[in-house]
Every structure is written in C-alpha cells, then in structure tokens.
C-alpha cells in the first residue's frame, strides 16, 4: 500500500520524500488545482527540481489538475496537462471530463488518476472513467463507509486510493457549492474553498472574536476558544433553537487504526491531505504513517496502533480532535 503525501511547496515536497512518502502530489501556481492559495504550489523550475529530487530516490510525483475549467478556460488546463507531461511527472490527477479526454488523447502514456473531485462512489461510475479515459487509479470521496470501500475494491474496476489523514471534507467532494454560494468562488471552478480575501475577523468587546465570510457570520469565539479557518461547513449556526456545529465540527480524519483493514481489502494507496500545511507538518505526518505502514509490512500479525503515533497525529489535528469519519458508521 502506497503512501501519497501533500506537497504545497518545495520544502514540503522534500520533507515528504525524506520521511518516506512513496509519492507526493502537488499543483501549479494557478487555478488548475484545488488548493489554489496564495504562496502555495510549484513553478515549473520548482517542479523540475522536485521531480529530480523524488526520482533520484525512487519516488513519484503526481500533479493535481483537478478543478473544472469553463469552455474558454479549457485550453489553459490542456496546456497544464502538456506541461506536466513534458516535465515527466508520474501521473496527473484530474476530475473534469474535458481535461481527462484531452490527456487520454494527447498523452496516452501518462497515467491518469481520477481526483476525489470527480465524486465517483460506485463501480458503475468508476467504469465510466475507466472505459472513457483509461484511468489507472481513483481517489474515493470521503463519504463511503469501510464496508462500502471494501465492496468497491472487490469489484476491482480500478485500483483505489483513500484519504487517511487530514482535514475532513464533510460534503461529497466536487458536489459542494457552499463556498461558491457565499463568495462566488469555490473548489470546483476556482480551486479554493472560502478564499482568504472574503474572510474577515473582528475583535468584539470582551475579547470575543467573530469571523465572517463575505459578510455572512460563520462563527464567534470566546477569548480562550481555539478558532479554525472559517469554511462554511465548520461554522456554528442556529437550527431548531439551538446553536451548534450544525454541519461538522472542526476535527481531522485519522484512519490509522483502520490501516490493516484497508490493506486487507486491497486499497492501493492511502492519501494524506494538507497541501496548505507547512513542511514540519508534512514531515511529522509522513514519518508517522511511514512507520505504521512499515510495521504492517514486516509484522502484520502483531500490528497495533502505537500510542506515540496517535499522540503525534492528534497534536497536528484540526481542533485537536480526530475521527474515523465516514469509514465508521456511527459518524454518519
């Protein structure tokens, strides 16, 4: 089972490779990828250096081109596919039918992975992408239970990659317009959820802080309360007379304890979320998962979750809480 780690920047790429990632995924510095944040991502020179560093150590580099261009924008995404191919990346990760179609015709030898943004949750949907575009792998949305992932693996349409650790998208990826509804910009078209320029923090009398997204109140925090990034899904709202995290609490997905099961059912790769995080974060998470995977390879029968691993991961988790998320039925 491969470990696929995020690289939002050249230092993060180096950290991931140094600490045992089998592959890193990254994006160009534009809206062709779903983490189009200022200060993140790779220039072409960065990409060349990153590929050189990874390939010299026998690791792979994937480029995410997983946003959805409009008709006039498509040529720009096609050019990004060409760039990725010319630089010799090991795979591209795409969601849009137009981008996949172009890649499969123009660069048939370049492996194509279906992005989580493609929202494929059944073997019928996976068959579509395999038959139409010859995808080599699919990243599953964070909505399926472990049993459902298992059923999908049994069908063996394409190898699957699942999210293992990091921020938890509560909605089906590729099917969430909450950011777009509030700001006009969202992950699908613009590659960013709740873009920073729409976020406004205000200090209130008494030390409280409020956070708004394009003027809409997402949450208020008391002085000693940790405050997370204001995506719409993680705000507190009033429903039926009560104020609570009506959609999702700020927690991180952590499936470490499911690792032996994921391997057993035939998951091809586990993915760490977090291209928006720094090199230190990537180093710690990668090192921890590498250790867990290595122990699984060598001592599968005696595998157990090491308390130190969980401590390391919990320290980095959003809201300092972790969940098995949708893999576990009770979360639903």
């Amino acid at each position, binding site marked *: 089972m491969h470990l696929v780690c995020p690289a939002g920047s050249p230092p993060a790429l180096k950290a991931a490779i140094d600490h045992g990632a089998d592959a890193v995924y990254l994006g160009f510095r534009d809206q062709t990828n779903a983490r189009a944040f200022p200060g993140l991502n790779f220039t072409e020179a960065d990409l060349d250096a990153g590929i050189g560093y990874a390939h010299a150590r026998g690791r792979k580099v994937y480029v995410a081109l997983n946003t959805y261009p409009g*008709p006039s924008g498509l040529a720009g995404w096609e050019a990004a596919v060409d760039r990725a191919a010319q630089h010799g990346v090991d795979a591209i990760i795409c969601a849009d039918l*137009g981008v996949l179609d172009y890649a499969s015709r123009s660069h048939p030898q370049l492996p194509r992975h279906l992005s989580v943004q493609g929202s494929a949750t059944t073997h019928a949907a996976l*068959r579509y992408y395999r038959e139409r575009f010859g995808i080599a792998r699919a990243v599953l949305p964070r909505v399926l239970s472990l049993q459902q992932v298992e059923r999908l693996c049994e069908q063996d349409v394409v190898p699957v990659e699942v999210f293992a650790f990091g921020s938890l998208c509560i909605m089906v990826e590729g099917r969430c317009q909450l950011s*777009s509804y509030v700001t006009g910009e969202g992950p699908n078209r613009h590659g960013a959820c709740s873009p920073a320029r729409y976020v406004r923090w205000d200090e209130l009398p008494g030390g409280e802080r409020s956070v708004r997204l394009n003027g809409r109140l997402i949450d208020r925090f008391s002085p000693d309360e940790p405050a997370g990034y204001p995506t719409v899904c993680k705000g507190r709202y009033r429903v039926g007379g009560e104020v609570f995290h009506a959609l999702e609490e700020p927690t991180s997905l952590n499936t470490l304890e499911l690792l032996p099961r994921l391997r057993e059912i035939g998951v091809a790769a586990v993915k760490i979320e977090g291209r928006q995080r720094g090199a230190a974060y990537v180093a710690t998470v990668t090192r921890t998962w590498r250790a867990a995977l290595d122990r699984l390879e060598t001592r599968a029968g005696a595998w157990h979750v090491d308390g130190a691993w969980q401590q390391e991961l919990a320290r980095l988790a959003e809201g300092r809480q972790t969940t098995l998320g949708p893999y576990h*039925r009770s979360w639903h």
Partner: protein
Amino acid sequence: MRLALGPLQYFWPRDDVLAFYREAASWPLDVIYLGETVCSKRRELRGADWLALAAELAGSGIEVVLSSLALLEAESELASLRRLVDNGRFRVEANDMSAVQLLRERGLPFVGGPTLNIYNHVALRLLQEDGLERWVPGVEQGRAVIEDFRAHLATLPELEVIAWGRLPLAFSARCFTARALDVAKDDCGFRCIEHPDGLPLATREGEAFLNVNGIQVQSAARCDLAPELAELRAAGVALLRIYPERTGTGEVLARFRTAIDSGIAPPRAGEANGYWHGAAGMGCVNPS
C-alpha cells in the same frame, strides 16, 4: 418556453405526495420530474409507486422524467438505479455518473441533471455522445457560462435552467437532519418527514442562511429568475425548472406561465439570483 416541475427534494407522507401530483396535473406545466434524488431511505413511495404515478401523469399529456439519486453509496442503491434505468418507458434524469454509465451501456437517451459536473463544452459533448439530450446546468452556472458554451459547441442540447426554489448546494454521507435532531442516521426514524420544507439554518445573528434537508444542504433563499425572463429566452433556455414546496407551488407555476405568455417579467418574489448573473449564489442583482 416550457415549465418543468423539478423532483421533490423533501420527504412527505405518501398521501401528501400523491395529492400533490394529482393537483399538479392541473397546473400549467409541461414536464414533471418524479422520484427520490436525496436519500434512498425515503420510501413512502417505492419504485413501482413512482412508475404508477408516472403513467397516470403521462396519461394527462405531461412529459414525465424519472429522476435518480445524486449520491449513491450502497450496492442496493445501485440496484434500484438499475431498475429505474430499465423502466422501459420513461426517460431518466442522471444526477450521478453511475446513472450516466448505466444509461450509456444500454444506449438510452437521458437528461443530465444539475449535480453532474459539466463545466465545459468537451464534457458536454462527451455526454451528448453518451446519450444526453437535455441538460440542467449546475446551480453555479449562469448566463455568461451558457453563452460561453454556445460559443464553443455547435449543437447544444435542450437547456433547462433552475428558475425557482431553494438551491441544492451540497451533499454528504452525513444526515444533517438526523444530526440536528440528535438521532443516529442508521436509526433516524425518518424524522425528515416532520420537516416538509426542510429545517431552516440561521447564522448566530439570526440571518436566514441555509436549509437542512437530510444529507442535502440547500440555500435558505429561493432562487427566482422570473424577472430575468428576457435574458433566459435570449440565452436559448427551453425549460424553466420550478422546485416543489409544500405550499404555493401551483401559484409559482402560474406566475411563471403568465410571465412567459405575456412576455412581461413579474416583480421579484424570491431572494436570490446571484448565480445567473455570475456572482455569489446568495446575492441578488437588481433586487427591485
């Protein structure tokens, strides 16, 4: 320009559903979309019931389309979808690539629903090859996007635009109604039946914001494109989609019908039209 009644997004008691659609047969509409698009656990009407209703409505001269789920997770849901696709009579609205695949394997024409991610002309052309004959663009896609499609594709399919209702914004594995009522999803007691127009969600300062509807999150604001009628016509939109609500849907349809027939756009009644104008969906351009 024709009027389409979109699929019922909420969960109503069986008798209420049947009464609603019997009344709908007398409304000034051309197309009705029937079936469950949100949650497979909502089974006040089974597949056979929907088909019987479809036959009844088709008998009164209405075009009937069978809508399918936007999110499929279980094998049983795929089996239901297969039965829907194999109904042998009515066209299907595909709301997920699972449905597209089953339809294309059988060579059946279909309607591309608003949750298929069709953002450019190549995606649309590929789906036309697969059998897409009518397209309901996603909620984000407004006038300029449709013009952009037209500039890049010689033959567009028939276009249907969401013109009235709370917008379907997001889908999840989690049931937000169950979460709000503090019950487990697997043991939800089908409590969304108590909320025939969903559960309103407001900000902490009391501003209406979203609407919780099972695993779906909707806008609280209703999209209303009746005042944009001339623009819709100029964009070549063939059908306007009206989403059902517990009350007032007949009046909404009558308002649109009058506007279409007279060519006079009515004053604004719903709160939002931002997406049509290329802005944030919750916004309202030219509010008066």
